[in-house]
């Protein structure tokens, strides 16, 4: 076969792929923290754009980013910035990861409602999660063993908490590692000596939120970045988001989309 024929066949294949990419089906996967935002905004977006079909899966930030690398999703939801290694792997495969901030969030520190401790410093959080402090009485609370609850290591929330609160230190081996924000909230609500953490969108009446370094996680303290455990939530696409994917992300960033973000308990972008 002549070289010219090979080039023609390859060109036809690439054009075919480009045509296939212009579908109105949008596939997202990744962070369980971003999941409620993605679901609620997708419903509202599809109501206005019935020709667009958005499917959303969880799995964790790392799972979503790996799926973007493999070319099987249009959007990777992530509750943490992409790591340099992941960025490298994407670019080597011809994927140009582009980050879109879709919301702000604070990682709230949760205790049982009966616990009188109302503030913890980042230093105390590190001491609790690494096992240096094991009883609430050492923090001005009752004589009660601390039950440490954390997210599993595949979670972007864990990675942000681990970096911002623990400085990369190892979580005590007796910690209970749970796979979702909801599971953490439920376990803390059911356990008098428990401490856990979850995104602001997951808080409920069953748990108490303590301030960190005397700063309460709120819309204002997250937006002005004074709350020590504040973060951005992202959607990553391959290159600049176009077509239905671009329209969907633009909708989330619009005033209407940001209102949905707030309704879900998260903080709107500034």
């Amino acid at each position: 076969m002549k070289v010219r024929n090979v080039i023609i066949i390859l060109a036809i294949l690439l054009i075919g792929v480009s045509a296939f990419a212009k579908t109105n089906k949008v596939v997202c996967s990744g962070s369980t923290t971003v999941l409620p935002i993605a679901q609620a905004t997708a419903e509202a977006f599809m109501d206005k754009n019935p020709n667009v079909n958005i499917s959303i899966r969880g799995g964790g930030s790392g799972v979503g980013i790996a799926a973007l690398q493999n070319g099987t999703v249009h959007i990777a939801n992530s509750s943490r910035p992409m790591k340099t290694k992941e960025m490298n792997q994407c670019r080597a495969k011809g994927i140009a990861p582009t980050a879109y901030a879709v919301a702000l969030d604070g990682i709230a520190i949760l205790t049982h409602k009966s616990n009188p401790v109302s503030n913890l410093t980042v230093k105390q959080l590190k001491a609790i999660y690494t096992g240096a402090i094991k009883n609430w009485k050492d923090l001005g609370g009752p004589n009660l063993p601390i039950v440490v609850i954390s997210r599993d290591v595949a979670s972007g929330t864990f990675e942000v908490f681990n970096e911002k609160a623990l400085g990369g230190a190892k979580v005590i081996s007796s910690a209970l590692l749970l796979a979702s924000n909801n599971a953490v909230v439920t376990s803390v609500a059911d356990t008098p000596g428990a401490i856990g953490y979850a995104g602001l969108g997951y808080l409920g009446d069953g748990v108490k939120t303590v301030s960190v370094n005397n700063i309460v996680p709120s819309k204002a303290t997250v937006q002005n970045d004074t709350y020590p455990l504040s973060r951005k939530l992202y959607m990553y696409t391959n290159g600049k988001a176009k077509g239905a994917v671009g329209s969907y992300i633009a909708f989330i960033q619009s005033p209407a989309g940001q209102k949905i973000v707030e309704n879900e308990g998260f903080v709107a972008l500034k």
Partner: protein
Amino acid sequence: MKRLIVLLCLGVMILPVMAHEIKLTGEMWNRWTLETGNAPAGENTILRNNLSLERGYLGLEPKFSDAVKGRFTVDIFSTDLVKDGAGLKIKYAYLDFSKLLPIPDMTTTIGLQKVYFGSIYDWDYTLIGKSPTDEYKFANSADYGLTLHGYIPKGWGEYALGLYNGEGYKNYGANLKNNIQPAFLANLRLIPVAGLTLGGSFMLNSSERSDSLSGLGGDNPKYNEQKLMDAYLSAAYGPLTLMGEYMMKDVTYPNDSAKDMSANCASVNAVLKLKTLVEKDIDFVVRYDRSDPTDSDKDENIVTAITGGVNYNFMHDDSSNPAMQLQLNYTNKSNSVKTTNDSSALMLQLKWRFNNTLKS
């Protein structure tokens, strides 16, 4: 062998106790090979027609803290082609320290580990064959050593500096050369735009030792110094990935310059992934190698190998990584001078892998 198995068992029992979490990994390659070529008498015939567990990797990857991780992998194979029918070697046994030096995204690795030369360290076996650096014996895939491996910010590439034994992980006993000089390695990969990777590797190695230990003293004529270089290019666009590599090796014998020699190899391959076009995850692969594996500069034989194949990937996980892969490859190998070595091989391989993370 018994001692090794006992050590493996102890490792499996002890590591989970010490580690914060531990990942168990496994990968098996079940292969059927039909190879034809010339018999010693000269006539063309079937040289090989057998089933084998060509490769099996079992690994433990303990995470001791956010900054310290380990990897322990054994390489097993089982085939009736070898005397004992099976073999077992330790492929990796290393610790990664990600915060030993205050350089972001850099890891210090100590132990039996990857060799960051050419394509050998991230070859993903989309084709059944080995990476050209491995296939044509330019570098070992694993060796004992100390490396610094890091990523350039914003996904612009990666780099590695290494100090190795230089013997590789497979040599033992009489095969092990009496060598007292370490090997030095530098590797750089740059990704100036998404999809385009440019890279180069440089390695200084040696074999044997300069002086003789035979009791007579004097120079050892087998001592040689090796200079290895590799240029790497990869281009990925949509479903198509092209990869090219050129490597060369200069070997000098300071005590016997008549043995000086050089070798070189060029290899290109293309992978077309159809999973975005059709519902099934299918790849088409082609590869062309041209190698001058010269043992002596007087030998002018050039080996040419052409491979074509197809992969069917299935049983995907949440990240769309396949747990199973069925591969069919046909390779034709020809020689410019030693034509009696010409051969062709048809290989059908079922590869399956698993992993599970246990938390303490």
